[in-house]
């Protein structure tokens, strides 16, 4: 492009859109400096782009309707379990039966625990309220993980870290402080690639260690257990076996 050759409409637009070579930019700017009509048009086109962003960019910040995410990651109904999950469950039973004596049989097949501790209901309630929140799911985001852990450890009175679940496909979204019967409690939130969310609810606990127990309310399932200095509840809307697998990872990761 030569600055003495008249610029076409296409040239002006290509300049606005960054579709010309760097070497041509200098020539174009020289041309515009001496051709105010073309310069005014370029300025008007640039202003159009800016106005379009002012007009439509607010849409980017609107909460995403749940209907959209449901299309992409539909909630799976609890249909007949495929053979492999039964095999996997048996394997888990054998493995942990040999090492720890967890109440796995009860956890997997046993009845719903009728009288779950209060904190479990609170954990499920907190899951329902916050996991569905697209814009403000957490108080402190995962980018501030160190601060989150320091803060929650201080409030709960014992060293606490966010369980690492990335090995099973869940990454930390962040966490928040909650109130539980006048005591502080913590909630960590996780998300997988399909935007399915799990929450781990933690509060101080001083009693004996317990096995995993299962609780469900409407669509939300939870496994809970006590392991001083904390009591834990893991909540999510995923099948029980999958949730139990996650519970194991949370438990293992909490062991100092």
């Amino acid at each position, binding site marked *: 492009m030569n600055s003495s050759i008249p610029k076409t409409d296409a040239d002006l637009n290509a300049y606005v859109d960054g579709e010309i070579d760097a070497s041509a930019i200098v020539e174009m700017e020289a041309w515009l400096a001496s051709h105010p009509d073309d310069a005014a048009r370029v300025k*008007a086109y640039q202003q159009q782009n800016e106005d379009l962003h002012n*007009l439509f*960019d607010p849409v980017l910040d609107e909460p995403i309707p749940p209907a959209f995410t449901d299309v992409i990651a539909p909630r799976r109904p609890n249909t007949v379990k495929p053979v492999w999950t039964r095999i996997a469950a048996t394997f888990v039973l054998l493995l942990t039966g040999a090492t720890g004596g967890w109440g796995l049989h009860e956890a997997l097949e046993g009845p719903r625990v009728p009288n779950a501790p209060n904190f479990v209901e609170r954990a499920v309630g907190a899951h329902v309220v916050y996991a569905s929140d697209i814009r403000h799911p957490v108080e402190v985001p995962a980018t501030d993980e160190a601060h989150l852990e320091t803060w929650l450890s201080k409030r709960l009175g014992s060293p606490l870290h966010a369980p690492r679940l990335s090995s099973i496909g869940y990454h930390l979204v962040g966490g928040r402080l909650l109130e539980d019967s006048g005591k502080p409690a913590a909630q960590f939130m996780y998300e997988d690639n399909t935007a399915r969310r799990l929450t781990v609810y933690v509060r101080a606990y001083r009693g004996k260690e317990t096995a995993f127990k299962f609780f469900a309310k409407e669509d939300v399932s939870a496994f809970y257990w006590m392991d001083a200095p904390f009591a834990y509840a893991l909540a999510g809307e995923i099948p029980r076996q999958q949730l139990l697998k996650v519970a194991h990872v949370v438990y293992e990761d909490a062991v100092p």
Partner: protein
Amino acid sequence: MISVPGPGFGIPVTDKRHAITSEIPQLRRFARALTGNAVAADDLVQDCLERALGRLHLWREESNMRAWLFTILRNLHVNNIRNSSRRPIETSLEDHDQPLGDAATQGQRLMIRDLDQALEKLTDQQREVILLVGLEGMSYQETAEILDVPVGTVMSRLSRGRENLRILMDHGNHHDKPPLRSIK
């Protein structure tokens, strides 16, 4: 229902779904600008997502996910227009005033109403090119692929569309002048 990963494609289905999810905000913005209506726009995005999920096995690793989704959305929009003699739902100015809230100055609101109305007056072909390039930051090449036209056509529609928009906006800024009736 969740489909199982098809043979011959390297990316797990969950990663593809994740890639689609991350494009939702941009798809909504484009749909809102195309239709000028929040409800119609979200219906369009929903249709687009369903269509994309149904054809996930056709999407290849090396191809541009965003361009693919925009192509689907735009084609659905064109079908909608074809199936009705006019734009399906009247544009409501309140739809656009609302997200800006009190932060927008009166000057901005006037500008926005002008731009909104001026966009309405462009041809569908000019509007979609201006939105893809000017709002969505697509290259001429990507825009040509989305619209399935040569790059030269993209450039000429863009030139004419921007010039029409400039003239329309100019008139909007001088309220003593009568509004432009036709821009053909």
